[in-house]
């Protein structure tokens, strides 16, 4: 059987890529996709835990995460549309109204 | 429960709140109905509070009219009310003052009338709650609950600079209260998780703890009193508040601080209180003289009276920290007196402010010619304020100076100079407002109407009643104050009864 650590490494790598993408890109759509990447990374580790610990709770959690991710995507994309309507850009640095 | 057979204190707390709820349901346009409802509620509350005066047992220091119910058992919080000789008179004062506040605001509040009376009634409930709570949690709840209506009274119906004053008032008192909250929690855990004030009072705390807790409670009470370095919120709050707000503030709210010293600081931390008596006396004397001298430089009527409150409350704290029976009883009586007199002065200023919309002393002059009845009322309160014998101010101040003198001659002598300056600023004020040539701005003002006279008459009666027959009020306090002193001198040394202090001459 494949050691659990392999999955966790994979999860960590994907997570890192997600983080890197989120931090380095300024395109709001790509940033959103980076978030999805991170969520998927977590999902990978949860599913693998579930498998290795003989426990369904990991999968339940993944199920919820996917549901929440869907919700988040819907809202996030709604925000993108609203932002684009006001700023005509997908560049996040243009949207800094919330600065102190 | 109590001798009356019904929970009088709860009734007094919740009746105004109920009244506020009823007013809330009324329409915005039914102004007259709102006013009458507020008046009826406040009068009923006052009438209901009269048994506290008549049925009070003046021979015991024990809490009376007690009520106790479980409230939040998991934290050992109870709904525990009761009064003793120290607090009972303040409840009566609160209910009386509320009526007068409703009356004085009858025509002067023109916006958000409904909300105004709701605030006043909530205030009344909270004030009575503070004076009757015997559970620290409940006490703190009411203590903070008082802030909100007062904050609104100043901030919504106040003068031009009201927002600044309201926020200043709120922050000052809140900062103090938070430290007290810390103290309460420390006590709670130290005493094995109880908020019961009576139980907490019967415990002995190590001196170090008493010391720190004393200062934590001091922060809350000194701000409320207000004592010398933390007094500056008071002039602003008084100046900007509407008349009713100033009256409640002067008559009841700032008594809470001194009441707190009596109810909590001294019995809970007797050793620290004795050790801290000298700094407290010093601060009191400074407040007396400082407040009085500041009054000489004021040009605003309400501000002057506000600063005079600082001076007068200095007498109260002086009496309290003289830690002898005359000082304590004088202090308590002076709290009542100050409530009556300063409350009445603010009511009076409100009456004339309604007519002229000016608080500047220089806008007046010769008012005695224009408003003779009004000036007679004002004269009575002026005289009471400067402590003329025969008025209530004298009895309190004399006992305090006597007590203060017995505790420390310096304190007694210096505080007595406050009376000289007091006469100076009050009479100067009276001269500038009422005497001399009539200012053109005030010619043709309306004399007081019946409503206004009715508002002031109870205060005049009290001024002379307490001045001429103070024993009736002092007799409420004797057992409680003696018990307090016993607690203070638990080690057994019999101090504090003036007359025995020097003991040079024995009268057989």
């Amino acid at each position, binding site marked *: 059987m494949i050691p659990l650590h392999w999955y966790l490494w994979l999860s960590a790598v994907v997570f890192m890529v997600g983080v890197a993408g989120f931090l380095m890109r300024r395109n709001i759509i790509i940033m959103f996709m980076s978030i999805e990447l991170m969520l998927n990374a977590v999902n990978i580790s949860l599913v693998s835990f579930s498998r290795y610990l003989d426990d369904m709770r990991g999968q339940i959690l993944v199920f919820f995460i996917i549901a929440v991710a869907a919700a988040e995507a819907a809202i996030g994309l709604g925000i993108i549309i609203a932002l684009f309507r006001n700023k005509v850009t997908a560049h996040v640095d243009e949207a800094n109204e919330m*600065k102190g | 429960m109590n001798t009356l057979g019904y929970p009088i204190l709860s009734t007094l707390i919740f009746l105004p709140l109920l009244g506020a709820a009823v007013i809330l349901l009324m329409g915005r346009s039914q102004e007259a109905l709102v006013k009458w409802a507020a008046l009826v509620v406040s009068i009923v509350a006052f009438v209901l509070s009269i048994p506290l005066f008549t049925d009070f047992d003046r021979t015991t220091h024990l809490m009376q009219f007690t009520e106790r119910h479980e409230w939040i058992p998991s934290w050992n919080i109870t709904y525990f009310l009761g009064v003793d000789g120290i607090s009972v008179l303040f409840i009566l004062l609160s209910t009386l003052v509320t009526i007068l506040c409703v009356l004085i605001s009858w025509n002067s509040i023109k916006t958000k009338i409904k909300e105004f009376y709701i605030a006043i009634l909530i205030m009344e409930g909270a004030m009575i709650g503070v004076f009757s709570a015997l559970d620290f949690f409940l006490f703190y709840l009411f203590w903070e609950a008082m802030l909100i209506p007062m904050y609104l009274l100043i901030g919504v119906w106040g003068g031009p600079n009201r927002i600044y004053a309201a926020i200043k008032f709120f922050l000052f008192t809140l900062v103090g209260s938070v430290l007290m909250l810390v103290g309460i929690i420390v006590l709670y855990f130290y005493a094995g998780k109880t908020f019961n004030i009576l139980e907490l009072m019967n415990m002995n705390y190590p001196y170090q703890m008493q010391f720190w807790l004393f200062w934590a409670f001091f922060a809350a009470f000194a701000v409320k009193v207000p004592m010398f370095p933390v007094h500056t919120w008071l002039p602003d709050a008084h100046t900007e508040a509407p008349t009713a707000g100033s009256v409640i503030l002067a008559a009841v709210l700032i008594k809470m601080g001194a009441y707190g010293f009596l109810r909590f600081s001294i019995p809970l931390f007797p050793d620290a209180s004795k050790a801290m008596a000298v700094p407290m006396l010093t601060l009191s004397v400074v407040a007396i003289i400082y407040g009085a001298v500041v009054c000489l430089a004021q040009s605003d009527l309400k501000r002057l009276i506000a600063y005079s409150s600082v001076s007068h409350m200095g007498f109260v704290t002086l009496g309290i920290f003289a830690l002898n029976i005359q000082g304590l009883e004088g202090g308590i009586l002076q709290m009542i007196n100050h409530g009556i007199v300063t409350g009445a002065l603010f009511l009076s200023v409100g009456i004339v402010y309604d007519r002229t919309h000016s608080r500047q002393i220089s806008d007046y002059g010769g008012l005695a010619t224009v408003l003779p009845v009004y000036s007679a009322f004002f004269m009575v309160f002026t005289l009471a304020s400067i402590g003329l014998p025969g008025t209530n101010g004298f009895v309190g101040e004399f006992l305090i100076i006597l007590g203060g003198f017995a505790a420390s001659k310096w304190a007694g002598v210096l505080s007595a100079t406050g009376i000289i300056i007091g006469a100076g600023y009050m009479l100067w004020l009276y001269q500038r407002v009422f005497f001399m040539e009539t200012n053109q701005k005030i010619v043709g003002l309306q004399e007081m109407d019946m409503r206004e006279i009715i508002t002031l008459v109870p205060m005049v009666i009290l001024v002379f009643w307490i001045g001429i027959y103070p024993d009736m009020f002092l007799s409420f306090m004797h057992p409680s104050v003696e018990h307090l002193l016993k607690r203070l001198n638990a080690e057994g040394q019999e101090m504090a009864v003036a007359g025995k202090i020097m003991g040079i*001459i024995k009268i057989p």
Partner: protein
Amino acid sequence: MDSYLLIPFLPLAAFFINIIFGRTLIKDKAHWVSILAVFGSWVVSMMAVAEVLQGKTVNADLYTWITSGGFKVSVGFLIDQLTSVMLVVVTTCSTLIHIYSAGYMHGDKGYYRFFSYLSLFTFSMLMLVTANNFLQLYFGWEAVGLCSYFLIGFWYEKKSASDAGKKAFIVNRFGDFGFGIGVIMIFLTFGTLHYIPIFGAVNGMVGQTVDFLGMQVDLPTLIALLLFCGAVGKSAQIPLHVWLPDAMEGPTPVSALIHAATMVTAGVFMVARCNPIFSLSPVAMDVVAIVGAVTALFAATIGLVQNDIKRIIAYSTVSQLGYMFLACGVGAYGAGIFHLYTHAFFKALLFLCAGSVMHAMAGELDLQKMGGLKKYMPWTYLTMFVASLSIAGVPGLAGFFSKDEILWLAYSGPSPVGKLVWAIGTIVAFLTAFYSFRLIFLTFHGKFRGSHEQEHHLHESPKVMTIPLMILCVGAIASGWVGIPSLLGGGAHFTEFMKPVLGHLEGHGTHAEEWMVMAISVVAGLSGIGLAAFVYLREGDLAATVTQKFRFVHQVLWNKYYVDELYDFIIVRPTIWIAKNVIVGVTDGKIIEGIVNGVPELIGRFSLWLRSIQTGMVHQYAAVMAIGAFVVIAMVLLW
């Protein structure tokens, strides 16, 4: 006893009736209420005096006023010999002056107010003299001060009047400050404030010292001097005399009643009442005597040059009060009270006559504008002349007997300063006679110096005013006859009567010495009158010449030794300056408010700075988040 309650409470009732109904119902009939009340009080007082004359004194408590621990004070009444003399003085003068006022104040728009204040004053004064404890004394003490404040400032629209009222009250507060502390000291010493037990136990104080503000002080001296502070204020002695001349802003009947006959003598009354305490302290006694003597001389010298008719009489009052203290200070309390009693009549009479003159002169006060009034107002002239003779100590009149007794006891008594104060007293007697007759001559003799309108207006006052003058005139002549010294064949009944309360001071000297003292004082008085006649009855301007010659002295006297200016400079202005510039400006305004507003300001600035962290840049937040996550994990790992 119960009927004695009417003595103070009848005037009080009159006060309430007048003040409540006066403006709307009673109006110009207010005097009836007050006069009837005061007259009733006089009648009961006379009954009380009759009882006391038979040796029946009363000491009874009405009710308990204040109780607090060991402190217990009642409202109660003590009617003994001293009180009864005061009752005679107060109720008699008060009744007569009430009647006089009905004429004098006629038509004033504050008529009802005037009478209610007068009644209130009478009540307060009676409470003061009938008190059986110090706190009630203090009550009366402050209450008469209050009435004095009201009545001095009666014409409140005049700034000078309202200023004077305020000044009187505040200056008195300075005295009361000491008095109040004295009362507290008495309580702390004796555990009670009632006269009888205290005076019974005073001997326990002998030799006791007490720590007072860091000094070890002899207890009786301390208490006596503190009490004397009050007397100094109320009786306008140096250095608190400044209010009394200003108090002349009040209506003249008020000056007569309050500022001559009754209230200002309360200090003397109090010292006499406390004589058991004073007698224990030679130091305090000497202080009293010297303050009295110096005040007498000081005020008399000022009186020499003033031109305001009422102010001259006011300084004369200050001077005569000094005389009374002088008497008390040498231990001759009986003589002091005797002088108080005779002085009440002739000084009230002087004031009322001055009022009558003012009435005729339409309020004019300046002597230089009068003259020759003798023919217009014979009754006023006659009565005032008699009063002046009395105050000048012309033998046979009231003032002579009391003044002589004081001087003799000062000279011959045991007091170490006795001879000194006797000498001063004699000089004062001369000065008194001089300025009194200067007043008479400038007012009533010579040619009229005022305007024509004034001359047309001159008339004798109505009967309601002159009749009280005549009654008082009888008093000014005859009131001294109760105390004719044994040297002149009298029985010295007065001091004998007072003996149970005030003790009796025997002069130690030969008859020859007594004759000599008497002769010197009579000569002093007569030569004063003679000098006044020489200067002011002759044609020519001798007075002006002398003034020119002693310009500096005249300036100093004219400006009352600049005491008012001095107080203004060292007390009033600095206090207000400090209040305005130091306390409001710096302490409250800058320091405390600086901290109060500075802390939020600082927090505000800090948060402004902190706010700039919130750039609104999503990636920055994200980076911080990532770093935070890194840090948290690292911490968990390294822990």
